[in-house]
């Protein structure tokens, strides 16, 4: 029985990836771009799911990791010429990891609500720094840059087209998903889940809980930074708005709507939220957050498992 459902999982996985890969060939330009964005926001949501869903730490600071990924990529693209894709990815990851280490060192001393608040305040610290340090970060206007070519180092380089950009994002997100899935199923991931279930008992068994938490925050920050790099490459700019706490809030919304602790759920949540925003903003213009917020409250109260919660066992075996 177990083996068979394993097989259905992989078949389903391949079908979804194949559909997503084929999508840009069939979709009009607007929806292709939309789909790419869903994937990027989905990666951000997935990274925070490692904390919210698996370790039981609600992070309100993911915008800092995402934003530093963007600014790291921007720094690499602006200073080195010709712009190099992999250098941008590397710099973005280093930036995000640095911030994550800094935030993790302080905030993992606290639990539950205190953790949520300190991560929020940390993201605001970085927002203020980026917003006011105009000489380096461009302040309110942010930074704009050219998109680097898609390259395999020393072998091959070609400019990004709309389709290859989508495929590149899809490849990165799929790889990240597989890595994250592996992490959550590894012994390390099991310890994280036991921290979620009962932190004191985990400590009593002999695991250095704080160290596990720091590593969890760093891993989560790395993937959030990767999402930031992708977003920077797609949109060719880095702006302080993306370090602002609203992005963290949206990440939490993606998680709750899609279903925490499922990895797939947050991507679904991101897609659901973006679609909702797209349709609702036709009726409510920029006030779409009023109905979305109400729906969010209702989901917190009545549907704590999220859209995908009921399918969790089936998906994450």
């Amino acid at each position, binding site marked *: 029985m177990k083996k068979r459902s394993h097989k259905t999982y992989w078949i389903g996985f391949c079908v979804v990836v194949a559909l997503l890969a084929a999508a840009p060939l069939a979709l009009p330009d607007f929806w292709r771009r939309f789909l790419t964005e869903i994937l990027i926001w989905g990666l951000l949501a997935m990274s925070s799911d490692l904390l919210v869903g698996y370790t039981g730490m*609600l992070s*309100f600071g993911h915008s800092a990791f995402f934003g530093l990924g963007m600014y790291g990529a921007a720094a690499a693209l602006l200073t080195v010429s010709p712009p190099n894709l992999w250098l941008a990815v590397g710099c973005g990851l280093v930036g995000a990891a640095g911030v994550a280490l800094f935030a993790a060192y*302080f*905030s993992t*001393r*606290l639990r*539950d*609500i*205190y953790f*949520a*608040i*300190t991560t*929020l*305040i940390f993201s*605001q*610290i970085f927002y*203020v*720094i980026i*917003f*006011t340090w105009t000489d380096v970060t461009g302040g309110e206007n942010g930074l704009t840059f050219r998109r680097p070519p898609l390259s395999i180092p020393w072998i091959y380089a070609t400019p990004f087209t709309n389709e290859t950009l989508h495929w590149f994002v899809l490849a990165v997100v799929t790889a990240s998903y597989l890595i994250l899935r592996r992490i959550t199923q590894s012994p390390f991931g099991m310890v994280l889940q036991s921290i979620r279930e009962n932190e004191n008992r985990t400590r009593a068994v002999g695991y250095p809980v704080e160290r596990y938490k720091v590593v969890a925050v760093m891993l989560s920050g790395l993937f959030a930074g990767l999402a930031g790099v992708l977003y920077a490459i797609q949109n060719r700019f880095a702006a302080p708005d993306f370090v602002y*706490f609203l992005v963290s*809030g949206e990440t*939490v919304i993606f998680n*709750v709507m899609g279903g925490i602790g499922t990895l797939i759920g947050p991507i679904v949540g991101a897609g659901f939220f973006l679609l909702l925003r797209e349709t609702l903003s036709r009726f409510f213009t*920029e*006030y779409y*957050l*009023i109905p*979305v*917020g*109400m729906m*969010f*409250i209702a989901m*917190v*109260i009545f549907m*704590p498992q999220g859209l995908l919660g009921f399918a969790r066992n089936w998906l994450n075996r």
Partner: protein
Amino acid sequence: MSAILEIFAAIPYDQVLIQTVNGIVTGMILALVASGLTLIFGIMDVVNFAHGELFMLGAYIGVVVLATTGSFWLALLIATLIVALLGAALQIVTLRPLLGRDPLTTILATFGVSLVLQNYALWQFGPVARKIQEPITGSFQLLYLEYPWYRLLIAALSAAIIGALWLFLKFGTWGIWIRAATQDRVMAQAMGIPVPWVHTGVFAIGAGMAAASGVLFGPLVGVTHAMGLDWVLKAFIVVVVGGMGNLGGSIAAAVFISLLEAYASIWVSPAQAVIVSFVVLILTLLIRPTGLFVPTPK
């Protein structure tokens, strides 16, 4: 020796005096906001993410009432009452179903509330900042500045409201119920205290205090839909630095942090002075995670 004297000589004492007064005034407002937040947290284990939005809504209701009646004090009273009622309604609708669940879900619910309220205010009142006219316009000479009396009045009023809250908690029947529910929720329930209604009442009081501080603070800055977030962040810092759920600690921390920020803004821009409070928070987390202004737990 002379180097130390030079440093002391370089401090602009006149500005320090002015910033001390400024810091105490904003500190008292912040204490009013934070004491509502800490009261709600201490009793219900709820971090009210929507606290800044209640503050902002209070200020807007103050604007509307002031425009129709022309009386600032009526505006203060009505805004407080309306937002307190709204707070009670919000607690019943969104937080009561979450009783007994993971406290983290209450952050999510109040975060949703803050989104709705903030966008409602944007929709209803537009993005242009509104102004509340101060009720008294006189000023006195503070060194070379014309310092408005109204600022001192705010500090006094905030202190009076906090004092009234303290007396109420100490001697009022509801106050005693509230303290009982803080100490032991189950036992309080067993003694016949209507704990769910105590929770609703506490949320209403906290919301009302946020609204009152919104109206009081309105004349100093413009009233905008986004004014809440700055305050709720600062109030969070105050509550953590002062020790979660500790009323006296919050007040001390509010004045402490506001003073530090005021002094910092002598040398750097106010936007960067915010960093000072962040640093205080980080140091608190490192040295005394239970809070700076609480006695050492035994």
